[in-house]
Structures are given as C-alpha cells and as structure tokens.
C-alpha cells in the first residue's frame, strides 16, 4: 500500500476510530516509514494543540445561574406545590378515615376494660368470701399485700369518715396483678382497684371523667405510677369523696 493510502487512514487512527486490525497494520507501517511516522506526529501534535487551545471560552457564573434559573425555579415551585397539595390531601384523608377509627378503637378498649372491672366488682360482691384479708385496719391490710404485688400503695385514714374498710384481695386485669380493696359507705359497697399504670391502660382510659356503666359509678385516675379505679353502686359524690381520700393518702 502506498503512503498516500496509509495517510488517508491516519486521521481515523489518531481519532481512535480505526478498526483494530487496520490499526495494527498502520502501526506496523509507521515503524518502518519515516515519512508516515513524521506525518502522524505532526497530525497528533496539531490535534493536541487544538484540544488545548479550543477550550478558549468559559461562561460567566452569573449567566449559568440565569439559565439554570430559567429551567428550574417555576418547575420546582410547581413540584413543591404538588407535594404540599398531596400531603394536605393525605393528612385530611388520614384524619377523616383514621381519626374516628382510632377514637372508636379507644372507646371500645375503654368499654372492655370497664366491663372487666365491673365484672370483677360484681364477682366480689357475689362471693361468699369477698376478701382474703378481712380487716378494717389499714395497717393490717396494706402489709398483707407485701410480696404479693410488684408495687405498694397507701390507704387513706378513714377515722371519722362515712367509709369503712372491709378488707382486700389479689386480683388480675389482663394478666397483671393488682389489689382490690373493699369499702362500704351507708351499706353500699365500693371496690377500689389498684394496678401498675401502663401505656396500654393510659390509652384505654379516654379521660379521667366519671363513667357510668350498668348504673355503677366508675372513676379512674393515676397517681405515683399507679392506676386507680373506683367502682360502686353508691352515689357519684361518694365515689368522688373516696377518690379524694386516696389522692391525699398517695401524697
């Protein structure tokens, strides 16, 4: 092949566009041909010089910012608007659908809890042995629970009050041990349940407001990490009174 033919392929060779087989042939030729190797050197130097000199102009940072700004901002804002709208809708849907569901679930849980406690109270009333420790002396009743419960509590002083302590016994609510204390006021019986307070109980009791169920007056409150319930067929005023006495005894 003449040198002219080789030099026709030289540009493709230097631009890395020559097929591998031809590249090998051309390189072999360059080894032995001074004219062609000199020409190849010249062309590759020109290519390199142009590569360096060709990067002559750089855009202003300000211009770049402007072009970028013209592509992005409206879009981005639109994008954010969309995100906001979607979030709003999602939250609204959550509130509308899940809110009542959650509230209903909580009310159901409270209902279940109150039913269970009412049952415990009724069972106690119906039992031949209402209490396991029979004593009107709070200093007898409280020590009896020692070692039986993972917590301790204070009983109110009832001297001079219409309430009388009958005694107490162990009880269980959802598998957790607690104390059931029996009081009377004007022939009405009151049960006071004491359990360790748990997040589950907290969630189940919607509020500390008095609850009425099957004509029983029920009250619940927390103090010192314990959850108290009073259940009685006595008046709400009596339930309030006993609650107040427990509250001051707990302090």
């Amino acid at each position, binding site marked *: 092949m003449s040198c*002219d033919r080789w*030099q*026709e392929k030289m*540009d*493709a060779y230097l*631009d890395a*566009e020559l097929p591998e087989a031809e590249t090998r042939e051309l390189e072999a030729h360059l080894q032995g041909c001074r004219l062609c190797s*000199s*020409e190849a*050197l*010249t*062309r590759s*130097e*020109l*290519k390199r*010089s*142009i*590569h*360096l*000199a*060709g*990067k*002559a*102009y*750089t*855009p*202003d940072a300000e*211009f*770049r910012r*402007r*072009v*970028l700004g*013209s*592509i*992005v901002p*409206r*879009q*981005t804002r*639109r*994008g954010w608007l*969309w995100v906001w709208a979607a979030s709003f809708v999602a939250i609204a849907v959550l509130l509308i659908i899940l809110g009542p569901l959650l509230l209903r679930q909580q009310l159901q849980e409270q209902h279940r809890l109150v039913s269970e406690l009412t049952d415990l109270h009724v069972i106690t009333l119906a039992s031949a042995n209402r209490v396991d420790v029979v004593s009107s002396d709070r200093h007898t009743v409280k020590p009896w629970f020692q070692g039986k419960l993972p917590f301790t509590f204070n009983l109110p002083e009832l001297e001079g009050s219409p309430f009388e302590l009958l005694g107490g016994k162990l009880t269980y609510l959802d598998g957790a041990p607690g104390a059931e204390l029996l009081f009377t006021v004007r022939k009405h019986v009151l049960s006071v349940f004491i359990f360790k307070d748990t997040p589950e109980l907290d969630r189940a009791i919607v509020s500390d407001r008095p609850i009425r169920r099957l004509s029983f007056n029920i009250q619940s409150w927390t103090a010192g990490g314990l959850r108290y319930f009073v259940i009685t067929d006595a008046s709400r005023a009596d339930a309030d009174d006993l609650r107040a006495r427990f509250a001051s005894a707990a302090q």
Partner: protein
Amino acid sequence: MVNISLTGVPLRGNKIAHFRFTLVGVGGHPDKAHEFEQLAMPLFAPLYNLAHWLTQDRSEAEDLVQETYAKALKGFDSFRPGTNFRAWIYRILRNTFLTSRTGLKTVVSLDDEDDSQTVAPATEETPESLLLARADHDVIQRALRELPVAYREVILLCDVEEMSYREIAEALAVPIGTVMSRLARARRAMRHLLQQRATGAHP
C-alpha cells in the same frame, strides 16, 4: 407537559436581559425538568465554548446558549432516553445558530463536498512538526477563527469535545462518511493556515 413561550429577539448581539423565556406549563413534570437539568447542565460550559466559537461574540454566544436550552427543554419530550443527549443538544445549538442572523451571514457554504475551498495537499508541504511545536494557543486560536464555520465546528467537536464520528454525524445530521471527509478537509485547511502564518512571520 411543559410549555415554553419564547419572547425575545433573534440573535443579534442584544443583551441577554432582553431575552427571557417563561415557563407557562400546566401540571409540569418536575421529574422531567430535573432529568433535563441533570443531562443538560454538565454540558453548559462545552456548549457555551462552542457557541462562542461559532458566534465569535460573548453576548451572542449567551443568547445562543439560552435559546438552545429553552428549545431543548421545550422539545425534551422528543428526546428518546438512552440515545445520545450530547449529540441531540449540540444539534439544537447548531440549528439555532444556523438560523440566527449571524449564522446565516457566516455560513457562506456548508456544502463542503464541493472542492472550492481547496487546500494544497499535505504531501506538498514540508512536515511542520517544528512549526506546530512553536505554534502557541494564540496562533492556533487565530487559525481556528479564520476557518470556515463548517470546518471550525467539525474540528472542535472532534478534537475539543472528543466526540466520536458517530456522535458528530448525529450532531451535524450528516453521514459518518461526510464527517470523515469534512474533517480531513478541515484539518488540511488548518495546517495550510498555520503554515501561511509561519512562512509569513519568517519569510
């Protein structure tokens, strides 16, 4: 769908401030714009460099680049993902330039398949390795500026942008064979200019 309304004047070296485009798309695709940004912004400096080489003027180059981006964003839906974005946007830049006033004025003949711009074949010249070694940036840049636009751009795409022949063919919308022949002519013309300059400087 992104709609862009172009308000402005054709490329005439007007200040870019007069050339604004606004996006009036409804329910725009932020993802699409983001994708466009990801693809197009890394090419900003090279596109500007090429625009400046074509127009030989900073403010015209800015107009050209801005219009290119506006057109590219508007037509981004017609860009097929997976194909060569660089060649696609260079093609837009080039077409925009060719239809601009400066472009129309500059490009006397793009038909490089005629041999009107004949340059003495390289073999008639002495090897000019030494001469090229002396040629500094200024000399090369001056020679590039003197080249016809069609030659200048093909050399820049190949040697500065380091595009493959296939990419160049896509960007210029010509067959690969045309790219190769145009490149050969352009390089010969370049060497001719450099040699003239050298012999002119050292008679």
